[in-house]
């Protein structure tokens, strides 16, 4: 790189601001800026290609599709906002949205509390801490298909593990876990906790390890018991992580598909059918791509709302 012979000052962005530098320097500077621009775009191009092709374009195309009556065979009729009107009048859409929100509401507190509990166990300096941590995290690496299959077998009436354990504990009647709406939700919730809580535990564990020990020692000297320590030191210190996990968990739960699809197929009836499953069925089974796309947009807007909350809170953390 050729350096200007006249001493120059640069402002924050590297532009030359010394007028004495003259014509020669500004030419060199221009050339440098140009080649930097070119370089930057060359570095960005491969990623941006995929990003615009598979992220930006689908968002735009999705909106366009949602304005049409559109089938996979590419027959289409422009219907304006008709699809949106249709879904707002569709009882099944509201049911699916309701189911999804219901799962967010039951699963988020459960997964936050369970995550804190496991993190506390792993963080209490027992012998074999590494084993405990790995064991709690282990289900997270299995795929959703394996998790669902295991739980369907565990919960199966007559031949399942759950009922036979309950029988030895004195429950005489056979429980049909996946055949009533409430129990089906409970089953999906159990499987989800087992599958994903290890992730939350790791986040809480990191939070716990940032709390200085002196805080606890000082509190102990002042005569605080374990509950006091938890209530007045641990919980307030974890506030940031708890917020983060609540937001992440709400987003993940809102996208529920695999567990409920594989374990109950939305049943009994349509009582555990989630929004994502309804979008899938509308688009791919009844071949109403336009309608399904409009639903996706509603899902998308809800997710953006969640994300804005997340960004706001993350910005605060920094």
């Amino acid at each position, binding site marked *: 790189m050729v350096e200007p012979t006249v001493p120059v000052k640069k402002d924050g962005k590297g532009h030359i601001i010394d007028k004495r530098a003259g014509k020669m320097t500004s030419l060199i500077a221009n050339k440098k800026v140009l080649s930097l621009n070119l370089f930057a775009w060359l570095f*960005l191009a491969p990623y941006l290609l995929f990003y615009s092709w598979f992220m930006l*374009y689908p968002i735009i195309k999705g909106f366009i599709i949602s304005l049409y009556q559109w089938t996979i065979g590419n027959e289409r009729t422009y219907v304006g906002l008709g699809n949106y009107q249709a879904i707002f009048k569709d009882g099944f859409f509201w049911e699916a949205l309701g189911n999804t929100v219901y799962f967010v509401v039951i699963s988020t507190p459960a997964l936050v509390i369970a995550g804190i509990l496991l993190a506390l166990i792993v963080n209490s300096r027992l012998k074999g801490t590494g084993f405990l941590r790995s064991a709690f995290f282990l289900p997270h690496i299995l795929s959703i298909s394996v998790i669902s299959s295991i739980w369907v077998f565990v919960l199966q009436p007559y031949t399942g593990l759950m009922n036979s354990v309950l029988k030895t504990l004195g429950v005489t009647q056979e429980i049909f876990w996946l055949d009533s709406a409430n129990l089906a939700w409970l089953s999906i919730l159990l499987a989800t906790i087992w599958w994903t809580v290890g992730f939350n535990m790791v986040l809480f564990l990191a939070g716990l390890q940032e709390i200085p020990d002196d805080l606890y020692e000082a509190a102990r000297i002042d005569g605080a018991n374990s509950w006091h320590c938890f209530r007045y030191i641990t919980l307030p210190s974890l506030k940031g992580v708890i917020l983060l996990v609540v937001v992440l968990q709400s987003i993940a739960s809102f996208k529920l598909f695999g567990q409920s699809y594989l374990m109950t197929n939305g049943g009994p009836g349509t009582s555990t059918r989630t929004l994502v499953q309804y979008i899938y069925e509308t688009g791919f089974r009844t071949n109403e791509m336009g309608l399904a796309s409009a639903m996706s947009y509603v899902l998308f807007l809800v997710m953006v709302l969640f994300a804005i909350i997340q960004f706001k809170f993350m910005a605060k953390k920094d």
Partner: protein
Amino acid sequence: MNAVRPRVTLGRILLYIFSYSFVLIWLIPMLWMVITAIKPDGSPVTVLTELIKPPFTMDNYQYVSENASIWRWTWNSVYIAVVTTALTLLLTSMAAFALSRIPFKGSKLVFWIIIAGLMVPTEATIIPLFLMMVDSGLVNSYSSIIFPSIAAPLGVLILKQFYDGIPKELVEAAEMDGASKLRIWWSIFLPLSRSSMAALGIFTFISSWNNFLWPFLAISDEKMMTLPIGIPLFQSGYAAELTIPMAANMLASLPALLVFILFQKHIIKGITMTGIK
């Protein structure tokens, strides 16, 4: 670590009993999978005394590997996960380097457009994505699964944050010595960001490995399926007996278990760093 060792009290003993009984219950579904997979067809699988007693057999495994395309699905899953991870690391690190270290017009705008993509879940774009794949003839191909995953912006964000922290002096010294931008990226930024790259790589690999919804839609050809899509298809033929499906579950989980055992520390560190599901 704390220098003060916890005293042995009744509370601690109870905590030990509680924690270890709980972890035992926690692992039961998995242990049950391990054992039922090696029990002969039709043996009682809910009675503990029967479960831990022989006969044991490898027949279920043999049956699965002969009657399901499980090795093909495993290969598909591995191939897709490896290529997705490699491309994600390469492309996002190049993009992050440009955004972090090369001043150019519109740099901020490009960054924000990419970051906005974090808000878009795949679940919301399945319809247009599918129609695009149909139009371009990519349905039932590896590319149809790999390409949309590479567009994920998380890597750009993580690596840019890391690159922003690399001291200016290091770059200036290299520039003095006449190193090009390409050289600086390759010989300074890539080696320095090894741990961030490892975290991002493992995260990408696991997400790809467990990806369910999109491959489920984009792949209908049995030969092109990944494990999460193929396994339920295979199992749908076995409602009552569970020894064979459990063997399939085991085979589908072995590669992930291996990765977990090898990279446990990195995985857990990666979650703490990225904090994204």
